[in-house]
């Protein structure tokens, strides 16, 4: 089921920006015909948790929504960093949502079938660390049955889990979907395979993308755990050694790969933590091009693109996206930006 105001896969658009700054407007289905034999496309295969939980702050009796936003320890579903909202729901813009009750250490939250305690009160009224009570099975069942995908005020129909899992979604580790991956389907992967374009994945626990609170948003993205397999690292080495390009599907993949990069452009395998923002001063060691959703200047996703292209190019990109009516949200259109020649250092 696709929400009424979401473009279907067939009508989505794609803006490509070549290494020399040249731009083309394509239907996104043309992705299957892009890239060259020997190139390697790398996507994030994280599935997305239903990270929004409604319930009650027992000490005050006030209704509350918590949005799980980051792992305390990767893959441990008992403890999370969360962002809390007071009364209301996703139909109100997050910017306009009231603050939650004032939290104290140990406050209990009743969240449908599961219960959590405030384990730490962090340095913002909306920000807490919480710990679910019970064993993993109980908590996973509680999240699966009571949790809802983080909703967006701009989408009228509530999103279901099947709306927010990409076609390649595997383990539920992300808090919001690694949405660039919505551009992929199995037919596209088959077409790439036939044309000699290689495909690999990593897993990056994409965190919450925006809170509606400017002070909190400045801290985003939170630390995000990732893992890179030996096979993916070997495919990168192989691609680099034969002159192929590395195409990252989504900013999360750029963050993982560049966090794990060695000076020679290879990557470290295993688990790591991507922290901090990437921006114009970030030197790209691994990634040659990024496929991304359409984002606005100032958002961390957009700022990351400054590592690929300078302001002049990005200003032209922004103007072209506006002029052609590209849809700028999680389920919108896509851009593919090659690392610009002048930014190669």
């Amino acid at each position: 089921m696709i929400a009424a105001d979401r473009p279907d896969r067939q009508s989505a658009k794609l803006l490509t920006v070549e290494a020399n700054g040249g731009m083309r407007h394509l239907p996104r289905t043309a992705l299957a015909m892009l890239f060259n034999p020997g190139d390697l496309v790398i996507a994030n295969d994280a599935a997305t948790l239903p990270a929004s939980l409604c319930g009650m702050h027992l000490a005050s009796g006030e209704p509350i929504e918590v949005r799980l936003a980051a792992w305390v320890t990767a893959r441990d579903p008992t403890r999370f960093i969360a962002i809390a909202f007071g009364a209301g729901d996703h139909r109100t813009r997050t910017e306009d949502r009231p603050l939650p009750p004032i939290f104290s250490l140990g406050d209990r939250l009743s969240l449908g079938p599961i219960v959590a305690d405030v384990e730490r009160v962090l340095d913002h009224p909306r920000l807490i660390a919480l710990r679910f009570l019970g064993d993993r099975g109980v908590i996973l069942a509680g999240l699966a049955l009571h949790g809802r995908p983080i909703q967006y005020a701009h989408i009228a129909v509530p999103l279901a889990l099947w709306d927010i899992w990409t076609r390649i979604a595997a383990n539920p580790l992300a808090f919001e979907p690694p949405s660039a991956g919505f551009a992929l389907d199995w037919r596209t992967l088959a077409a790439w395979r036939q044309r000699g374009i290689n495909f690999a994945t990593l897993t990056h626990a994409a965190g919450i993308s925006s809170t509606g609170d400017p002070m909190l948003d400045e801290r985003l993205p939170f630390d995000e755990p990732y893992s890179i397999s030996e096979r993916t690292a070997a495919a990168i080495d192989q691609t680099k050694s034969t002159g192929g390009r590395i195409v990252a599907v989504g900013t999360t993949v750029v963050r993982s790969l560049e966090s794990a990069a060695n000076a020679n452009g290879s990557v470290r395998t295993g688990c790591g933590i991507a922290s901090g923002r990437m921006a114009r001063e970030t030197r790209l060691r691994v990634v040659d091009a990024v496929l991304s959703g359409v984002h606005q200047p100032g958002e961390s996703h957009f700022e990351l693109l400054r590592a690929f292209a300078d302001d002049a190019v990005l200003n032209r990109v922004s103007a072209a996206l506006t002029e052609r009516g590209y849809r700028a949200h999680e389920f919108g259109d896509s851009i593919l930006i090659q690392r610009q020649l002048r930014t190669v250092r």
Partner: protein
Amino acid sequence: MEAAMDLKDLRVAITGGTSGLGLALVRLLAAQGVKIAFVARTTSAVKRTAHETGTHGIVGDIGRKADIYPIALQITGHLGGLDVLINNASSLGPIPLEFLADTECEELDQALAVNLLGPFRLTKALFGALAASARDGRGAIVINISSDAAINAYPGWGAYGASKAALRHLTAIWAEEAKADGVHFRSIDPGDMNTPLHALAIPDADPATLKHPEEAAADIVEAMRASLPRRTAPLFGTPA
């Protein structure tokens, strides 16, 4: 570089895991140390089987669309991925069995929901995890439990037979489409077994003429083993 995959690293999901063939599969694989998540509708039966076998039980109804993603989330969340999916849960349709002209539309709906749509939806929800496993060199297989009623036109078995025939063809097509992704698909007919489902269909069958579900489970595990990468071959016993 491919390290031998320890059997204890194999991650298997089984639907309909609290009775008949599904329960036999859970018990057999649990005894081999495989990481298992099983699904069934009844909370008390799920708790009993989980307790008995030391495996992870998930309460859910494969025939309900709304249950599928919560089930998939719990499977991958608990196992950390998935190598093998066994779609075993089945519905007979009308009980007692009826001629098609006496079958209510809702009864056919129910058979299709559990025997066809459920396996399709769950496999689709888990396909990303299975393909990830294949890309990682672990291998991946979906085993859909079939029946000779999927091939032969037995009077009275219309709802069940038609839904199982559709599942069999779905499996065959998916096998072709997913081959290049490294995800195997198999339809397996376990034969007539002495199970609660069979007793509902043919209450007066002589149990002595029926296969034990444990035997069928062993055959299925053997087929599963054969479809996984060779380095996982020593599923039973030690490598030579």
